[in-house]
C-alpha cells in the first residue's frame, strides 16, 4: 500500500519548464476562481441567482473582514486579500477531491503567500509612514527601562508572523490529508487481513468519513484564518501607531 505521504509528491509534467502536478493544480485553482466568478456574474442581475449570490457573499465576506480589521482605507488591499482568500480556499477545497493534489500542503507555497503578505506590510508601511512605521515595535506608555525588552519581544513577534502564518496552513493541510490517508489505509489493511478483522473494517471507514467532513471545515476555516491574520497585519501597515 502506498505511503500516506505519497500524495504530496511533486510529479513533473513538462520538466523543461518545471511544470508539475503542483503547477497544474495552481492554474486549476486560478481557473476555477476566475471562471466561476465570471460565470456567476455573467447576468449582472439586480436580483441575484444562486451562483451570483455565492459570488456576492464571498465578496462581501472578504470585504467585511477587511474593513472590520483595517477600516475603510484598508479597501485598497481588497483585491490582494480577496485573491489570497480565494486562492487558499480553492486550493484547499480542490485538494479534498480524492486523487487531487493539495497545493497548500507544501510549506514553500504557504510560506511564499505569507511572505507576500508580510512583504506588502513592510513595503507599504515604510512607503506610507517612513521611519514612523518602526513605531510598531515601540508601544506607547511603556516605562523606559522596560523598553529594550519590549522592542526585542515585538521584533521577534513580528518576525515570527510569516512563519506562524505559513506553518499553520501548511500543517493543517498536511496533517488532515495524512490522517485521511491513514484511516483509509486501515480499511484496506483490515479487509486484506481477513477473518475477524474484516468485520472491523467499517470502523476506520466511518472515521474516514467523519474526518472528511472535518477536513472540509478545516479547509474553509484555514483559508478564513489566513485572511483574517492578513487583514490584521495589513492594519499594522495602515496604522502603525497602535
Amino acid at each position, binding site marked *: 500500500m502506498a505511503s500516506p505521504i505519497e500524495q504530496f509528491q511533486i510529479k513533473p509534467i513538462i520538466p523543461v519548464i*518545471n511544470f*508539475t502536478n503542483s503547477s497544474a493544480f495552481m492554474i486549476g485553482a486560478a481557473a476555477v476562481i476566475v471562471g466561476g466568478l465570471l460565470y456567476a456574474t455573467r447576468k449582472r442581475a439586480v436580483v441575484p441567482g444562486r451562483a451570483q449570490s455565492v459570488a456576492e457573499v464571498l465578496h*462581501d465576506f472578504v470585504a467585511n473582514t477587511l474593513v472590520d480589521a483595517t477600516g475603510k482605507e484598508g479597501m485598497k488591499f481588497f483585491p490582494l486579500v480577496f485573491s489570497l482568500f480565494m486562492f487558499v480556499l480553492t486550493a484547499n477545497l480542490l485538494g479534498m477531491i480524492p486523487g487531487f493534489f493539495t497545493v497548500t500542503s507544501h510549506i514553500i507555497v504557504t510560506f511564499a503567500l505569507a511572505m507576500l503578505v508580510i512583504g506588502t506590510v513592510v513595503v507599504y508601511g515604510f512607503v506610507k509612514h517612513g521611519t514612523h512605521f518602526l513605531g510598531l515595535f515601540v508601544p506607547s506608555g511603556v516605562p523606559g527601562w522596560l523598553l529594550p525588552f519590549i522592542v526585542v519581544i515585538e521584533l521577534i513577534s513580528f518576525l515570527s508572523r510569516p512563519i506562524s502564518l505559513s506553518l499553520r496552513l501548511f500543517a493543517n493541510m498536511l496533517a488532515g490529508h495524512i490522517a485521511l490517508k491513514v484511516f483509509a489505509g486501515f480499511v484496506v489493511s483490515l479487509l486484506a487481513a481477513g477473518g475477524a478483522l474484516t468485520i472491523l473494517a467499517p470502523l476506520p471507514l466511518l472515521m474516514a468519513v467523519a474526518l472528511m467532513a472535518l477536513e472540509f471545515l478545516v479547509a474553509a476555516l484555514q483559508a478564513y484564518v489566513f485572511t483574517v491574520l492578513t487583514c490584521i497585519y495589513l492594519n499594522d501597515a495602515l496604522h502603525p501607531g497602535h
Partner: protein
Amino acid sequence: MAQAQTTNATTEAHGGAHADVGFPPFETETYGGQLLWLAITFVVLYTLLSRLVLPRLSGIIENRRTMIAGDLDDAAAMKTRAEEAGAAYEKSLAEAKGRAQTLAQETRAKLSAESDAKRKALEADLNQRLADAEATISGKKAEAMSHVDAIARDTASAIIERLTGKAPAPQKVEAALNQIKA
C-alpha cells in the same frame, strides 16, 4: 506485508525518479518550480480578479445599492407629495367648513330677522284688533247701557199699567227712575 511490498515496487516502477521518497514538502529541489508557477499563477489571478472580476462584482453590488437608494428616495418624495396633498385637502376642507359655517350663520340670522319682523307685524296687527275689539265692546256696552233707561221706563210703565189699569204719565216715571238711579 508481502502485498505492501509489491505495491511499493509498482509505485517505484511508475514513480521513477521519486522511488526513494523523502518528505515531499521538504524536498528543496522542488521549491524553485513551485515558486515560479505560484508567482505566475498568483500574478495572473490577481490581475484578472482586480481588473476584471472584482470591478464587475463590485459594480453589481454598487448598482443595486444605488438603485435601492434611488427607489427609497423616490418613495420618500412620493410620501412627501402625498402628505402635501393630504395637507392641501385638509386645508380646503377646513375652508369649506368655515364657509359653510358662515353661510349657515348668515342664513340663520336672516331667517330669525325675518321671523322677528313677521312676529312683530303679527303682534301689531293683533294689538290693533284687540284695541278695535275693546273699542267695539265699550261702544256696545255704552249703547246697551243707554238702552237700559228706556227699557226700565217701558217696563215700569207696563208694570204700573197692569197694576193700576192706567198708563202713568211718562214724566212721573222718568222722575221716579232718576230718583232710584241717584
